């Protein structure tokens, strides 16, 4: 283990002491306060909107609606509004496409006056019939011809139907919302024709492109700051209407405008994991060899964007199976557009796949792990490529040991602790490893610090800490002498933070830039008179000192070298990309979640007595931040398994639990013991550090692990998430 592999989170002190500045906290002279007023119907047109009372209310500076908006120039250019990537154009016209869709922007001099004025706005509508229930809108199902939307077949179509043992089942997951602690927020202002945004974004460069498109300004003129993010989980991957609204308001008033969504709006206006219905067809021989696997998914999207995710993708490669078919359809509903939520696609798909695998294992009277081992994929049959590395079996072994799998009995309900039924379950997770082209600038300063710059964000996983560790490792600098500048435009261009790709992309770029910087400095040093006659290969660079390996009396400090040369000789900006070699391999992270539940069948109470999450994520750069991410992802999966569901009253097309008292996420008391484990073996292909991704696999596979454990404890198979207690107890009439 290297000295940088367990450093503390570099921004931890700033975050826990409140000195970290989040978007809405920037001190902005002259800032005024804005909020959005939402529609109270799910579909139709605004007949009239009465803004007079609000306009006359004390302190109100502007009320903007579709009737008086100065439309951004980009609205006209975006001809086909149904293309993905062209979100709802706020205030474009009188149409209402979903409940709580913003219909007015209210700006006032104080927060309280703004909120009061907003409560005075009343609209009348021409209502149209809305559709918000996926199960009742199947006739609107559509196939989208894209990589994600195309049907996939390997071998015989629906080959499972010819198997000796067949399983056909259906699973649903409800809408789940991201709802990070930090609300969606922005301070927007204009400097001449240049928009400046302090906003919650997972991708500074992506936000710049969206804003440039909407307002018809050059991308380079858009300034975006998103230096600290209080969680996002995917909701920051989109530029949302509220951000456009704040810029419209700021332009009108020529003042900085602060807009923070209120918690209820976080459930309706900034995306969610889409409600999805999945059908599984699995076929196997009697001795447990999978011969066919069909995975079909139907998911919701909005009426104005085609949102798709990799729901069925995992089924194509995770097991060794000759005949695989996948189909994926979407149904437009009258809601806001869904957006990627932690483990997007795979989290949903793994619930169906890993539940079905468990069900089939019972049909075959096989231990679920044994069944998976008999169908272990030695290579990726979808892409027909070797794995870059795969230590999934090690994850199984570690998890079985830690959870006490040997105490599990295949017969449901046959293990008890006191009055509690004991069940063990597991679920496999995976996620692709991506690496995006990334630029990083590294520079040595005369004061003994190393500066690393990249526009990438850190939404919480510890990106700055990872950059510090890699930079310190390569240069030999102490971590406290590494300064990270990130999360804003104007810095070397980094990737969007998503898809578990940040360490692979940015870490590699830090790695490459630091190596190039050290080489550059060594070359410069070797030309110094002090090292006359000494070949560069005989020089070392340690603790800020360049010296001769053979004669350490011959040395120059980096500081003196910097002082006697030009500063630009001590900086490198480099664009780092994946090697061509990587295309020959299939690169995935793998995880397995194990759960031991105790169930009181009379009360339906499910206790998570022990949760173990094991992952093969290649090299672990930092044990602390990685463990933190794994714990958090697993807890997210527990929420998905046991609690989370946005309840919609379809009569009105409105959510009814859009608050934190009624939309449940787990609390500490829900999880009695939790552990994480990493194989920590370097991937030889993925990138110079040998890392794979972590953020998504930390969640993928947890929900089925819980469902499978509940079945093992009770004999009740819950196929519709979340597994609330009413699904466990018998609902017979008294």
């Amino acid at each position, binding site marked *: 283990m290297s000295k940088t592999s367990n450093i503390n989170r570099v921004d931890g002190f700033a975050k826990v002491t409140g000195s970290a500045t989040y978007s809405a906290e920037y001190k902005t002279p002259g800032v005024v306060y804005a909020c959005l007023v939402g529609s*109270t119907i799910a579909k139709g047109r605004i007949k009239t909107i009465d803004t007079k009372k609000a306009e006359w209310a004390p302190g109100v500076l502007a009320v903007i609606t579709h009737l008086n908006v100065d439309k951004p120039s980009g609205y006209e250019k975006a001809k086909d509004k149904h293309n993905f990537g062209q979100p709802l154009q706020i205030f474009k016209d009188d149409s209402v496409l979903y409940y709580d869709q913003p219909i007015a922007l209210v700006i006032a001099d104080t927060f*309280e006056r703004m*909120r*009061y004025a907003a*409560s005075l706005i009343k609209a009348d509508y021409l209502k149209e019939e809305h559709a918000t229930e996926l199960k009742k809108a199947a006739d609107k199902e559509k196939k989208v011809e894209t990589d994600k939307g195309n049907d996939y077949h390997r071998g015989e179509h629906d080959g499972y139907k010819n198997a000796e043992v067949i399983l056909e089942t259906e699973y649903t997951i409800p809408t789940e919302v991201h709802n990070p602690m930090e609300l969606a927020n922005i301070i927007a202002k204009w400097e001449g024709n240049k928009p400046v945004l302090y906003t919650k974004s997972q991708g500074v460069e992506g936000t710049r492109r969206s804003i440039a498109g909407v307002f018809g300004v050059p991308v380079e003129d858009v300034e975006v700051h998103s230096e600290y993010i209080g969680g996002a989980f995917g909701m920051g991957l989109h530029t949302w209407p509220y951000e456009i609204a704040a810029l419209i308001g700021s332009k009108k008033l020529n003042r900085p405008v602060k807009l923070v969504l209120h918690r209820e709006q976080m459930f309706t206006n900034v995306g969610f994991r889409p409600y999805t219905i999945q059908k599984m067809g699995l076929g196997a021989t009697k001795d447990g060899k999978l011969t066919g696997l069909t995975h079909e998914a139907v998911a919701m999207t909005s009426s104005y964007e085609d949102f798709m995710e990799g729901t069925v993708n995992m089924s194509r490669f995770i097991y060794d199976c000759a005949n695989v078919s996948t189909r994926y359809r979407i149904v437009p509903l009258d809601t806001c557009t869904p957006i990627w939520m932690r483990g997007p696609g795979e989290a949903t798909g793994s619930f169906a796949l890993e539940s079905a695998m468990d069900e089939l294992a019972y049909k075959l009277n096989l231990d679920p792990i044994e069944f998976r081992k008999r169908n272990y994929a030695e290579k990726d049959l979808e892409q027909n490529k070797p794995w870059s590395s795969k230590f999934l079996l090690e994850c199984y072994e570690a998890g079985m040991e830690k959870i006490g799998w040997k105490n599990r009995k295949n017969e449901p309900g046959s293990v008890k602790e006191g009055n509690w039924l004991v069940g063990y379950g597991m679920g496999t997770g995976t996620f692709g490893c991506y690496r995006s082209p990334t630029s990083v600038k590294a520079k040595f300063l005369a004061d003994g610090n190393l500066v690393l710059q990249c526009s990438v964000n850190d939404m919480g996983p510890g990106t700055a800490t990872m950059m510090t560790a890699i930079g310190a490792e390569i240069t030999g600098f102490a971590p406290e002498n590494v300064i990270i500048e990130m999360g804003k435009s104007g810095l070397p261009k980094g990737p969007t933070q998503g898809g578990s790709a940040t360490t692979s992309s940015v870490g590699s770029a830090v790695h490459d830039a630091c190596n190039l910087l050290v080489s550059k400095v060594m070359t410069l040093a070797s030309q110094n008179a002090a090292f006359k006659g000494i070949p560069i290969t005989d020089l070392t660079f340690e603790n800020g000192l360049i010296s001769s390996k053979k004669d350490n009396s011959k040395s120059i400090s980096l500081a003196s070298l910097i002082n006697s040369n030009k500063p630009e000789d001590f900086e490198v900006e480099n664009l780092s990309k994946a090697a061509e070699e990587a295309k020959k391999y299939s690169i995935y992270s793998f995880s397995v979640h194990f759960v031991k539940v105790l169930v*009181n069948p*009379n*009360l*339906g*109470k499910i206790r998570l007595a022990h949760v173990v999450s094991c992952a093969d994520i290649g090299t672990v750069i930092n044990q602390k931040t990685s463990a933190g991410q794994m714990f958090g992802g697993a807890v997210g999966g527990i929420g998905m398994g*046991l*609690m989370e569901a946005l*309840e919609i*009253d379809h*009569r*009105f097309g*409105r959510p*009814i*639990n859009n*608050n934190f*008292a*009624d939309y*449940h996420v*787990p*609390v*500490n*008391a*829900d999880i009695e013991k939790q552990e994480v484990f990493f194989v920590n073996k370097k991937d030889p292909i993925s990138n110079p550090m040998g890392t794979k991704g972590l953020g998504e696999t930390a969640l993928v596979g947890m929900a089925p692990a819980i469902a499978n454990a509940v079945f093992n404890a009770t004999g009740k198979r819950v196929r519709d998430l979340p597994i*609330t*207690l*009413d699904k466990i*107890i*018998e*609902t*017979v*009439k*008294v």
Partner: protein
Amino acid sequence: MKNFQIIKALSSSSAVASITKDTSVMFIAGGTNLVDLMKKNVVAPDKLIDINALDLKKIEFLNGKVSIGALAKNSQVAEDQSIKEKLPLLALALAAGASQQIRHMATVGGNMLQRTRCPYFYNTDMPCNKRVPKSGCGAIGGTNRMAAVFGTSDSCIAVHPSDMCVALAALDATVLVEGPKGKRQINFTDFHRLPGNTPEKDNTLEIRELITSIEIPDNNFTKNVHYLKVRDRSSYAFALVSVAVALELKNNVISNAKLAMGGVAHKPWRLTETEDFLKGKTASEDIFKQAGKLGMKGARGYGDNDFKLTLGANAITEALTIAASK
């Protein structure tokens, strides 16, 4: 939230005198529910009378009864050593409610007056007879997992959300109030009411009346008591069903029994018939199962909450079993 005045009351009589006949003036104590309701525009008072300075925070052990001031904090009562010893059921119920932060702010009187958590009551875009009389009940025919199964009406199926009140109903508490006509006492079980055609009224408190204290008679329920709260997560969630049980056992024979349920009705639901059934019986699994079934007699589900019929019976059985085994 609209602008409002807040005035500090220095005596209960001056507090009462400040209240007008309509709802434009309201008392505020801990504010843990009222402030939420104001933020959401469910209520919009012009003036708040802050009663926190009143001398109503004491817990006193008097001859034959315990008196708890209306402004005693929930955490103060739950953690009081004498309450834990003499009224353990009350301490258990209080500790099961909300979160530690909320319990530090919330008062005993305020807890009694908290409004339902029915989502249709909170969302001002939805119909709700309790919030806007004659606007209809959204929960009937809607999403009603939390809703009542006892004492409902065609206008309302909301439940009272308190845990503390369930224990107080079981323990035969009395509510002491002060109003313009002077002081009076209300039996705790008569304090909250069923919705009928006027679900906008949660309780029998008259306008301008102020709760000053509650009194709980001395009893022998110091050992075989339990508060069972069944909820969707282990902390900070309202009860789907809760059961307060207090038993007096002599050689395993039940000499006295008090039972009340939460999460099932517009008020804490006292199970007197079940109490009578239990008296004189020997504690056993079978008797407790029968008690569970009897307790849920007459319950009616509304769809999403049908499971409460089974859950309620099982919860009664479980609570009795745990209480008897202590």
